[in-house]
C-alpha cells in the first residue's frame, strides 16, 4: 500500500480482507470444535436452513458440504438469491468416478412444484457450471455425464416459481484429471468426421420417476459419512406406459479449453420441440459436459412426435435431428 492516506478503494479492500479473515477464523473454529455435531449435520443435510441452524454452518451459508466456495458460487451462479439445502433435490451417481472424463449423474426433483430451472455446479472443477436446464413441459429430471477434475460435491440448484433456490448434492470421489486431458476423439482426430451426429429415441419411462414412491431414485451418494444403500438389492419397478423418456447421444468433442493448444469447443444450447411446435425443454451446456454427450429427459406424457432437436455449439455449428415419438 502506498503512503498513509489510503484511498476509498483501498479502505474497501482492507475491510473486505478483514471480513474474509474473520470468516476463515470462524471456519477454523468450526472445523476444530463440535466434531460430533458437524458429523451429524453432514449425515443428513437440513431440509431448509432454519433458525435452529448450528452457528458454524452459518460460516458456510448453511452448506452441508462446508466448502469455502459455496458462498461465492451462490453469488456467481444463483444471482446471490436465497437458497436452501433441500433433500427433495437429488443428485445421483456412483460414489466414485470410474472414469473422471465421464461421470454419470441423474438430477431429479421429488415433491417440488413449479420448477423453473436446474443448474448443475461442481465446486472443485476449474469450470464449475456444467449445465442449466429449463424443463418447460418436461419433468425436472435430467441425466447427463460430466468431466470431474477432482473429488468434489456435485450440486443441483433448482429454482421454483417463487424465486427460491433448492439445492441438493452428492459427493463424488475422483482420481482427477477429467477437465485437463483431451478426449478420445480429440486424441485420435476422429471428432471432425462425427461432429454433430445425433442418435436418439423416445422410450417408455420407468414409473418411479414420477414420485410414485419407488426407491429407484434414492441417492446412491448420501452426504458424507452416511452409509450408501446396498446396491443391487433394490427391486426395480415396471414401466409406465404413459410417461416417456427422450434419450439423446450427440457427437461433439466438448473441449474444455484447459488442454494446451486446444481451445474451448463445446455444445452450448439444445432445445426440443414437439409436433405442435411447443418447446418442450431448453438446455444450456458448458465445457464440463462429457465428450459425445448423452442426455435423458423425462415427460409425464409422451409428447406428440416427431420431436425436433436443435442445438448449436460455441463455434456456431448446428445440431438438427428429428426423433419419432
Amino acid at each position, binding site marked *: 500500500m502506498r503512503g498513509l492516506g489510503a484511498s476509498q478503494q483501498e479502505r474497501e479492500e482492507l475491510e473486505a480482507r478483514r471480513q474474509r479473515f474473520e470468516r476463515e477464523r470462524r471456519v477454523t473454529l468450526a472445523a476444530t470444535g463440535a466434531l460430533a455435531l458437524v458429523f451429524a449435520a453432514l449425515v443428513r443435510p437440513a431440509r431448509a436452513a432454519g433458525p435452529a441452524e448450528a452457528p458454524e454452518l452459518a460460516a458456510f451459508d448453511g452448506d452441508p458440504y462446508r466448502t469455502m466456495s459455496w458462498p461465492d458460487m451462490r453469488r456467481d451462479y444463483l444471482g446471490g438469491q436465497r437458497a436452501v439445502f433441500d433433500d427433495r433435490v437429488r443428485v*445421483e*451417481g*456412483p*460414489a*466414485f468416478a*470410474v*472414469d473422471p472424463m*465421464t461421470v*454419470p*449423474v*441423474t438430477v431429479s426433483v421429488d415433491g417440488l412444484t413449479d420448477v423453473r430451472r436446474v443448474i448443475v455446479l461442481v465446486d472443485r472443477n476449474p469450470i464449475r457450471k456444467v449445465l442449466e436446464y429449463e424443463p418447460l413441459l418436461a419433468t425436472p429430471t435430467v*441425466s447427463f*455425464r460430466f468431466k470431474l477434475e477432482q473429488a468434489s460435491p456435485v450440486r443441483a440448484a433448482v429454482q421454483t416459481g417463487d424465486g427460491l433456490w433448492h439445492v441438493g448434492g452428492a459427493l463424488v470421489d475422483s*482420481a*482427477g*484429471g477429467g477437465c485437463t486431458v483431451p478426449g478420445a476423439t480429440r486424441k485420435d482426430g476422429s471428432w471432425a468426421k462425427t*461432429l*454433430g*451426429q*445425433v*442418435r*436418439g*429415441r423416445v*422410450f*417408455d*419411462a*420407468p414409473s418411479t420417476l414420477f414420485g410414485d414412491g419407488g*426407491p*429407484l*431414485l434414492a441417492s*446412491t451418494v448420501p452426504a458424507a459419512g452416511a452409509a450408501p444403500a446396498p*446396491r*443391487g*438389492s*433394490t*427391486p*426395480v419397478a415396471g*414401466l409406465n406406459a404413459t410417461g416417456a*423418456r427422450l*434419450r*439423446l*447421444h450427440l457427437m461433439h468433442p466438448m473441449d474444455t479449453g484447459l488442454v494446451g493448444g486446444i481451445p474451448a469447443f463445446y455444445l452450448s444450447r439444445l432445445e426440443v420441440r414437439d409436433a405442435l411446435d411447443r418447446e418442450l425443454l431448453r438446455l444450456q451446456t458448458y465445457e464440463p459436459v462429457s465428450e459425445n454427450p*448423452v442426455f*435423458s429427459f423425462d415427460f409425464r406424457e409422451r409428447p406428440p412426435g416427431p420431436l425436433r*432437436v436443435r442445438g448449436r455449439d460455441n463455434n456456431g*455449428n*448446428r*445440431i*438438427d*435431428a*428429428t*426423433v419419432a415419438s
Partner: protein
Amino acid sequence: MSASALGPTALLAVVLAAAPALAASAAAADPSVRSTAPVEATKANAPQVDVARKDYGLRARALAEGVWVVEGANADFTPANGCNIINTAFVSTGVGVLVINTGTSRLYGEQLRALIAQTTREPVVQVLHLNLHPDYFLGSQAFADVPRLATPVTREGMQREAKAYEDNLYRLCGDWMRGTEALLPDRDFPPADASTATPAAAGSKLPASGRFRIGTREFSFVELSGHTDSDLVLVDRASGIGFVGGLVFVDRIPTTPHAKIGPWIASLDRLAALGLKTMVPSHGPVVSGPRGIDDTRAYLQWIDREFATYARDGWEISEVLRAPVPQRFRDWAAFDTEYVRNVVHLYPLYERAALPEVGSGAR
C-alpha cells in the same frame, strides 16, 4: 555380463545348452517343493501384509514340482492390502526361473525377486506378462536385468497406458508405490524359437498358439482376447497347470476397462476346450476344474443379457446401478467397486446400440 546384454537368441542358446545337465537335479533338489500341497487355495493363502513396514508378506505356494504361485488378496486395490490383488507365479526350468507377471509396484517386484531367491537356487532368466494391466508389470523394475516378454499387442497397450496406471495407482495405493515407474517389456512374445502352430499374422483374428521350451520345461501357449485385446494363456506341460491371466476370475467380479464381452465369452469356450485340470487366475483363488471358466462366463452372459435389456428400455446408468444383481455375483469379492466400474465401462456400448441415428450436424 548381465543377461540383458545378451541378445535373445544368444541367451536361449546358453539356456538350452545348459539345460540337460542342470535339469535333472535342480527341481528335485529344491527343498521348498511340496508336491502334495493342496491346489485349491483357502483364506489362509492371503498374504499377511505389514503396512507399517511396507512388507507384502509374499509367500510362494508350490502347486507342483517347480511351480509356485504367489497369491494376492482377493479384493480391490486398497492401501491395507498393499494393492496386492494379483496372483503372480514362477516356474523353475532347470536352467533358470520363468516369472509370470511382476506385480503392482517396484516394491512388490523386489519382494517377489527376494522370495524367488529364497525358494529356488535358480536365477531368474525370463519374465512374461500375460496382459497389459498395471499389476502385471509395474513390479518390473526389479527384473530390469532379465528379458521381459509380452505380445506385441500387450506391449503397445502398456506403452499407451503406463503413465495413467502410474498416476492412478499412486493415488489408490499411496506409499506402496514409492519409486515405481513403468519398465516396459523389452521383447515380443512368442520367442523366435517357439513352434507357433497358428501364426498370428498381422491383422489376423486367429489366436496364435504354440509351444516353447526353457531348460527341461515345455510350455504351450495360446493368445486369446476379450478381457483385453491380448490375453495370453500359458500352460506348463509337465503339471498341466494353466496360467489363465485375466480371462478367468474366481469368486471375484471381473475387471473390464478393456473388455469386449463377445470375444471374451468365445475365448472362455476355447479355454474350456483345453481341459486344464488346474488354473491359476490372476485374481481369485487357484481352482481345479472348470468352475472359474463357468462362473466367469455366467457373469459375462448375465451382463450381456441384462445390459441389452436395460438399454432397450431406455435406462440411465444411475438406474442400472440400482437394478438387482443375483446374490451369487454380489457375494464375489470387490462387488461394491468393480461392478460399478463394469456398468460405467460397458453399459454405454449397449446404450449406443439401442439409440438409432436420427440426424447429423448442419454446418
